[in-house]
């Protein structure tokens, strides 16, 4: 359970201490009260992160976990029970409720009516469903909708990259994508090569990825049929604007776009299906980026230039710029929100003038 380990690593004392220092100014803050968290059915450890975010912001938390009994959820919640039984964390225990109930609008409405804040992890349809259930007037809501993510590779930095480094990069790219079948909001679908790569560099990168995939990924029949179906659908729908680069013995599909379409975000590959675009100019991205865009992972490009791309062009999307390999690292800043500050209130205190 790699994901449970990732969570355990994230809540280690050193990391929490780092966060405490980063949010030192937040001593002037208090939690909102009681939060209701609706967490995703298909990312089992997400509930634990959401819970800790709520706790760190100073709240009591009701966390609805999926009905499905994921071993990850069982492992984390039983560990929590054991820690609470020791009696050393009574304050925290009293502010904790992990809930499991079948989809039921009545229950969710009752809980919503009592909370000071609601955190909804997406799927646009889920958000639409939950939004119908009213909150108290002062309550805040944080929603994490469907997003789209991409990867920018600097072609010149990748030329003559030593094999070992190339392999490491491929491994990280794999972790961002195949590990979650490219279904996570922060998993890239588009690979934007900044500067046109020479053929050898491009081939070396993808062949390195293919090797990692061969060694680690279970190519299940239904996924493969799905991927192949998507390829043929693209053949019709992208007619003229795309060319199939390679299929890597079915382990990896690459489709090269001649132009970035305005509805780029509709092109979502899964199970190892990537759209590629070659460009001399990062700014080519500007016209297609919408508020749906979330994470940009990069290698061989300076983060400053990417920051300039977003801020200089006042883009409505891309709120996370991280190196390749860190696409899935959930943190207290997510989807453009400062979660700690969003789930707490600031007490402004002014001194008297006299």
């Amino acid at each position: 359970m790699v994901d449970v380990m990732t969570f355990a690593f994230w809540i280690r004392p050193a990391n929490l201490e780092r966060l405490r220092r980063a949010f030192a100014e937040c001593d002037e803050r208090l939690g909102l009260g009681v939060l209701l968290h609706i967490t995703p059915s298909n990312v089992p450890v997400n509930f634990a992160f959401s819970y800790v975010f709520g706790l760190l912001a100073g709240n009591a938390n009701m966390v609805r976990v999926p009905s499905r009994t994921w071993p990850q959820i069982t492992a984390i919640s039983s560990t929590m029970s054991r820690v609470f039984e020791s009696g050393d964390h009574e304050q925290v225990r009293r502010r904790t409720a992990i809930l499991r109930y079948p989809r039921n609008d009545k229950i969710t409405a009752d809980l919503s009516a009592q909370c000071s804040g609601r955190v909804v992890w997406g799927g646009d349809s889920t958000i639409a469903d939950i939004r119908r259930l009213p909150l108290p007037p002062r309550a805040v809501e944080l929603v994490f909708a469907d997003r789209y993510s991409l990867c920018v590779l600097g072609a010149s930095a990748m030329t003559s990259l030593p094999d070992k480094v190339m392999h490491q990069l491929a491994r990280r790219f794999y972790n961002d994508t195949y590990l979650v079948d490219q279904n996570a909001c922060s998993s890239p679908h588009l690979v934007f090569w900044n500067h046109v790569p020479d053929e050898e560099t491009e081939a070396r990168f993808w062949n390195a990825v293919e090797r990692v995939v061969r060694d680690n990924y279970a190519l299940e029949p239904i996924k493969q049929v799905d991927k192949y179906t998507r390829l043929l659908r693209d053949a019709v729908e992208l007619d003229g604007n795309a060319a199939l680069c390679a299929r890597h013995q079915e382990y990896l599909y690459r489709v090269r776009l001649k132009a970035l379409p305005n509805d780029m975000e509709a092109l979502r590959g899964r199970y190892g299906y990537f759209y590629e675009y070659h460009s001399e100019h990062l700014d080519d991205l500007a016209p297609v980026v919408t508020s749906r865009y979330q994470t940009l992972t990069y290698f061989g490009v300076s983060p400053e230039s990417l920051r300039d791309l977003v801020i200089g062009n006042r883009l409505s999307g891309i709120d996370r710029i991280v190196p390749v390999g860190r696409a899935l690292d959930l943190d207290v800043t997510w989807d453009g929100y400062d979660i700690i500050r969003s789930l707490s209130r600031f007490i402004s205190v002014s001194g008297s003038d006299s």
Partner: protein
Amino acid sequence: MAYNASSDVRGGRTAARERLSGANAVAGFDVASLLDVAPYSLDHVTKSALFAEAMNALTRHHFSHCPQYRSMLEFLGISLDTHHVLADLPPLPVRLFKEFELLSCPRKDVIKTLTSSGTSGQQVSRIYLDRTNAGLQTRVLARIVASITGGARLPMLIVDSPAVVRDRQLFSARGAGILGFAMLGTDVTYALDEQMRLDHAAIAAFCESHADGPVLLFGFTAIVWQHLYKVLRDKGEKLPLRDASLLHGGGWKKLASQAVDPVTFDGRLRETCGVARAINYYGMVEQTGSIFLACSEGHLHCSNFSDIIVRRSDFSIADIGESGTLQLMSLLPTSYPGHNLLSEDEATLLGEDDCRCGRKGRYFHVAGRISQAEIRGCSDTYRAA
């Protein structure tokens, strides 16, 4: 390209050419001449040559007549200037019939549209048939069914409701199946009424006329079990038939959940309905006509009109006995590009030309749908949970 080539046998090609050199139909090869030979007669050498030839011809036909199909092949980099080994011709995933209107004939020539809900929810597949294609389906189905009935048209009891076949322009897969088979019978009688209850009067009349002679029963496996067998059993009744064959298909999934296996099914139908022979068939609405019948050994057989390939996840060809995703080829589809399909069914190739039943051709087993993948990621949290 990923379709790993098998070692295609080229030896029988001349013979196949001769066979195909009759009057031709739409795609540049003659399927009609196959109607004159026994439907399970072609051995590997002859058949693989015939199929390589015919599938190349059909692929060229659909490439020229169906714009979307053409885009797909061009995208995959398949050039039709050269002859392709059978296994290298790319199959079309069945789901695409739900997403695109795929026709290889003028819209005005479509006389029948078959629909099927299939695997993924509300969207339906649409299969467009012109007169030629529809006629060929009927003739091939008749030829295949004749292998069990001996060729005579038999009195037929359809275990379903006539309500299913009411709209003659737009057929559901179930309706299309019933109408297709109904054409092969005489005194066609529906055993169920509009509400799917036994139509006692109709059944009694049918049994009275045909109690001693051979009759054909047709229905979907789950419906036969649920609406015929179980109802008779609960009432303690039996059908007074002595020489009935039952042709049934549609999958075992519903019955498996009630722990009913083929042996149990056959036994109960024999006791209750006088079914001397229950014959299971497998087929898909996308390839109506060239169905696969199970033999006395319980194996599904390709006829001369169809062939299969079982593929691994990386689309390489699975060994005999190894399960994989089923690819189906049929010589029939000309008005829509359904001649070479990638299904979402899991199957195992059991052998070729050497089944103990004596039929030539490949025989196989279908296990059901390829299992649903565990979808990872972060969407649809509330609805799904």
